């Protein structure tokens, strides 16, 4: 599904991703962890072309993301993304948020579009908030809408970038619930950047540990948490667990 081969990414002269080699298979649930500034968000964002890569090859669903021939907009319909700050459209209602992209990108008919939206809203437990605006909802509710918005495109993969870290503690649970359900569903390839270690342990098949723009470990979840190989990962885990 997603395949990095010797990928390099620079911000100006700053080398943000070093020699990334990584393969994620269809239906897998992978968690990406690492200290702040290690390049987790950057890696995630290259996958749907929000950041360009400078060297190496990055294939998503068989398409080369870096190639100018690739239609990025089309690729993005297959790869959903959920942001730390939700990024719901403030000028649209909840329903419009969900229906906009399917309508203008997939040209999905109004009736079907609405049915899909309502089904998804029910699934994230917010069927009654249809006509509100994002600012009228709590952070946790907004994040669940953002997830529903991604799902509405029927993506093959969903990328989550610290989806709970901007939430008040009491809001985190409801979002993790929804995410667990998605992770368990093998129809979706799921890649999650998170600091919620319990969640990571519970849902992921594999853990990728990054530091300073490099992948330091790539191991099955149990193995990673029980026997981290690098000193760096051990240190990181001990810090995170203290919070």
């Amino acid at each position: 599904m997603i395949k990095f081969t010797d990928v390099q990414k620079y911000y100006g002269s700053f080398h943000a991703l070093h020699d990334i080699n990584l393969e994620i298979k269809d239906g897998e649930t992978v968690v990406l962890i690492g200290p702040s500034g290690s390049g987790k968000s950057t890696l995630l964002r290259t996958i749907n072309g929000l950041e360009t890569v400078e060297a190496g090859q990055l294939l998503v669903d068989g398409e080369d993301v870096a190639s100018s021939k690739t239609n990025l907009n089309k690729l993005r319909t297959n790869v959903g993304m959920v942001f730390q700050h939700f990024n719901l459209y403030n000028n649209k209602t909840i329903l419009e948020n969900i229906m906009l992209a399917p309508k203008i990108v997939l040209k999905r008919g109004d009736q079907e579009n609405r049915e899909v939206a309502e089904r998804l809203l029910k699934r994230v437990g917010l069927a009654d908030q249809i006509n509100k605006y994002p600012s009228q909802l709590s952070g946790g509710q907004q994040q669940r809408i953002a997830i529903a918005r991604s799902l509405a495109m029927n993506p093959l993969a969903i990328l989550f970038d610290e989806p709970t870290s901007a939430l008040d503690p009491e809001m985190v649970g409801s979002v993790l619930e929804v995410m667990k359900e998605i992770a368990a569903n093998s129809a979706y390839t799921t890649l999650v950047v998170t600091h919620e270690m319990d969640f990571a342990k519970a849902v992921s098949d594999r853990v990728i540990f990054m530091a300073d723009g490099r992948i330091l470990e790539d191991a099955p979840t149990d193995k990673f948490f029980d026997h981290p190989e690098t000193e760096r990962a051990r240190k990181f885990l001990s810090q995170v667990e203290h919070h």
Partner: protein
Amino acid sequence: MKIFTDNWQTILTGFGYTIGASILGLIGSLVLGTVFALMEMTPQPVVRGSGKALVEFFRNIPLLVITLFFYVVVSHVLKINGFWAGTIALALYTSAFIAECIRGGLTSVDPGQMEGARAMGLNYTQAMMQVVLPQGFKLALPSLGNQFINLIKNSSILSFVAGLDLMYQANVISGTNLDPFNTYIVIGIFYLLLTGPLSVVMTKLENKLGGIN
């Protein structure tokens, strides 16, 4: 007042032309200003450069010079009378200021909005039109309102080119009745009739939006 009862037809004609020029000027400058702002915001360097250049150009030269240019030079080529020369100049001049307001509004829209839309597969234009621009307009509303007030006041430029507006009629009237004092006061009241309520609304709006922040 006697000035009004003696000249009400003239004054109301002028009032009509002033309102006409203001509304046409507003529509024109909103459209042009938005185009300029979008030009200034695009990543494409040539388009962005031209957008910036146009805005700086119209911002830094007097409205009167633009008006006279349309009236005495452009009118050689296109048949336009004073009213249209003045109104076109007004729209061009104001569009530079409107572009600044809208650009300000657009830059204060959270960049996450653009990203969110792009990540869903919308292209730049779709994301701009559906998500960013509507929010930018809303944020720009108070400063747009102030520009509209300026535009109404600036429509008095039409008097230089026989645009038949309020100011022009004021000069016609005071040239006849030789009572500039009361004439200009009466005409002033008519301008306040337009700008006053607008400025009250704008102050309210500014306070309201200021209160949220």
